[in-house]
């Protein structure tokens, strides 16, 4: 395969691998929820995370490739923020309906 540099092609992640990765991610994030950590990349929180969720974190990093771990960790604060905004909007809508 001249087109692709002749290197052995990296294995594409398949469904079962993806699902295993997502599962480990969810377990790790649940642990973060328990200790009220929003941003797992926050430097000041590293001690707290490693104290409480090091096992989950290790599993997460084992089941997902490094780029995904980084991606999911970066995404978490945004997802939480988004969820919060959506929840607030829904509540406001519900309240507005009651006011009527």
């Amino acid at each position, binding site marked *: *395969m001249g*087109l*692709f*540099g002749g*290197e*052995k*092609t*990296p*294995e*594409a*992640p*398949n*469904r079962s691998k*993806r699902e295993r*990765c*997502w599962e480990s991610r969810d377990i790790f994030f649940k642990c973060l929820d328990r200790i009220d950590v929003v941003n797992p990349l926050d430097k000041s929180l590293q001690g707290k995370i490693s104290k409480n969720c090091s096992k989950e974190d290790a599993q997460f990093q084992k089941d*997902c*490739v*490094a*780029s*995904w771990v980084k*991606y*999911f960790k970066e995404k978490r604060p945004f997802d939480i923020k988004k969820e919060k905004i959506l929840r607030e909007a829904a509540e406001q809508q519900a309240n507005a309906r009651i006011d009527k």
Partner: protein
Amino acid sequence: MMLRPLFRPAKRDLRFITRGFSLSRMTLNELKSNDPKPEEEAPKMKRKPLSRLPVGGPDYSKQTLKKNPIEFLTWKAVVVFVIFGSALTYVFTNEKEKLKLRREAEQNRGMGKPLIGGPFNLIDTDGKPFTQENLKGKFSIIYFGFTHCPDICPDELDKLGLILDGLKSKHNIELQPIFITCDPARDSPEVIKEYLKDFHPSIIGLTGDYDEIKKCCKNYRVYFSTPRTIKPGQDYLVDHSIFFYFMDPEGEFIDVLGRQYDAEEAIDKIKSNISVYQPRAEREKAKAGWLGFLYK
């Protein structure tokens, strides 16, 4: 002042004429009515001119209403009205919707050079060439992604499977689904083939060399951030746009479907776009015709 005497005699003449006429009619009736029941006819009031009826008098409505007026409010008339009305409403809203969709599609196609789409030269998972010519003859849906995509692409490709199955079972529509990688360095035909095994079996996976993919992404306005050279085994993610591109059987762009659509909504949108689709020649004919102003 001068006109008055002129008009008076004319008026008087008219009165005489009418009276003479009615008198003659009466005499005619009398002549004919030699039947045995003249009393029954008598109590029935003869029609008087309206001007002679006292308004609000007891016989006013009897006198003014015709015996058998054409009735507009019969149940038949109501049924006919409702059926006719709803049929017309349906036809017009339907046509309006069609026109709207066609106009949108036309705007998306753009004038002259298409805004989105265009020639590309890629290879499928069997290494066979695949170009824009392969889009012809079928409605296609194109998705750009990469196999190492963490969460969005797999979700979207699963959704694509639902869309394809839904269109097939509900409307008997078969699209040509195409997956184009934005990550040619890692996604060889073999890798894509392996990757697509997890998804709908009809999806065609495409890759190509770096510059061809880059050009193709540019033509489809897909944000492309893949590094040109990577060390083997290097791990990275690719930022890319996440739309389904819906293409007509002439290989021209119709619409995008973003992530906000769930499978059902996407099916409806695709179905309605297909049902209003006209080939280019027909579109141009319609535009040149007497209803052409509707397309502007």
